[in-house]
């Protein structure tokens, strides 16, 4: 076998090996993103499961917050529909978070509710779930960033184009929530 043939075979083998490594890396990162998404969905499901119990406990004490409670139940029902898109689901979950945190603030005006054992346990569980949701979103963003870096950086971007890997979006908050909170206005309202 001539030297040039050996070199050619070696070069082809090397390129083949690199192809395998890069392709597998892209697959691994895509799966990591799906894994992160699955983890987040599991945490969100835990929150949805808490809501009926929370609403039932709170309803008898917080007669004036009936509107908020009904809205939370509506949002929960909407979130559980299989037909909604990921973007709609994200929007609904953000609204659930906002309504729940607003509700927890209103609880301060109901001392009987605050001392209710069932409510205290539910509240602690809800805080835990919210922390887990925040951590899951951070993990998701980390996985997506890693994936996006791979599909945009050379030489893996070549393979990403060939195998039609598309950029994914990270979780972010609306522009209005990025502004500093005016605490004074909150007390005045």
């Amino acid at each position, binding site marked *: 076998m001539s030297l040039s043939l050996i070199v050619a075979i070696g070069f082809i083998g090397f390129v083949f090996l690199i192809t395998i490594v890069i392709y597998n890396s892209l697959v691994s990162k895509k799966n990591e993103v799906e894994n*992160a998404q699955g983890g987040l969905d599991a945490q969100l499901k835990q929150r949805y499961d808490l809501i009926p119990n929370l609403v039932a406990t709170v309803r008898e004490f917080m007669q004036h917050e009936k509107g908020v409670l009904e809205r939370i139940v509506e949002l929960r029902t909407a979130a559980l529909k299989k037909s909604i898109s990921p973007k709609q689901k994200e929007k609904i979950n953000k609204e659930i978070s906002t309504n729940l945190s607003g509700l927890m603030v209103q609880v301060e005006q109901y001392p009987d509710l605050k001392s209710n054992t069932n409510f205290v346990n539910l509240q602690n569980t809800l805080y835990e779930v919210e*922390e*887990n949701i*925040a*951590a899951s979103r*951070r*993990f998701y*963003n980390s996985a997506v960033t*890693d994936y996006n870096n791979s599909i945009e950086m050379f030489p893996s971007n070549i393979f990403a184009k060939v195998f039609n890997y598309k950029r994914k979006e990270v979780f972010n908050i609306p522009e209005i929530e990025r502004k500093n909170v005016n605490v004074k206005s909150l007390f005045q309202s």
Partner: protein
Amino acid sequence: MTARRELRQLYNKRLKPKIRVLEREQRKIKNKILITFIVYLTLNIILFYSFSQFWIDATDGSIVFVAITFFLLTFFFIASFSFFSRSYRKRFKDEVVKEIFMLFIEDVEFIPESYIPEMTFQSSQLLSDRYNRYVGEDFVKGRVGDIKLEFSELRVERTTRRGKEQVTESVFNGLFFKYEFNKAISNPILVHADKAHRLVGKMFSKFLQRISKPKYSPVNLESIEFEKMFAVYCDDQIQARVILNPLTMDKMVKFQNRYKELIELSLIDNCLYLIVHTRKNHFEPKIFGKVVSWKEITEIFDLIDIVKSFVAQLNLNVRIRR
């Protein structure tokens, strides 16, 4: 009252009189060492003078005798330092150091001759290097609120043979803390000092991270400053991020920046283990110079206070859940 003001009050009211008593004892020790040194010098002069008179007729045996005598005299002279200062060191630890610990640790037990058990050290999974010597001192046990606390100085070494020479390498030299909470986490979290990042930069350190700890998965966190200093490992990516949230990462970065010695920690079951690579012998009085200065007292205080504040800020009793 701030902790520093409490320390200043303690120092002025209780520690200063005790330090004065220790200074008198220090003077006695220095006198004893001086006398011992004079005796040592005199004996060596006699030894070498005698040898110089008779060296022409000296045999191999007499040379060996002189050498052994010299080393024995030197050994006893050095050992006399430790012998004379034993009760002085014990009094310093019992009367000064223990008082400082009592400022922020409840139910303090201070056993200067004891140290963290080796099994506890191994349970922390913080150091995987082989070692064949495990010693320590200044064991402290107590409570900080609900949290049980133990710590001590440790020296972990490895002796290897390089050719004909025996070489001793330090594996760990510093302080080891163990905090026991009333809740446990399901997956161990290890936070190591990212020495690789400091040496070879981000790209290669991530690669080294993946291959160095195959037992656990690396966790890449968002804080750039934190990632430069620490390498995190945990099989549960979400749990790691619940514990190491942005506020905690910020506290750890500030802690590391303030206290230049490397820190590493692990969370396993219901315990937090924290090591500080100080390479210093802590909690010791001086034989020459001031027994202990205000600056040295604040160093002891700051070290324990920083670790205690840091652990309190982790708020693990609230945040660890089953």
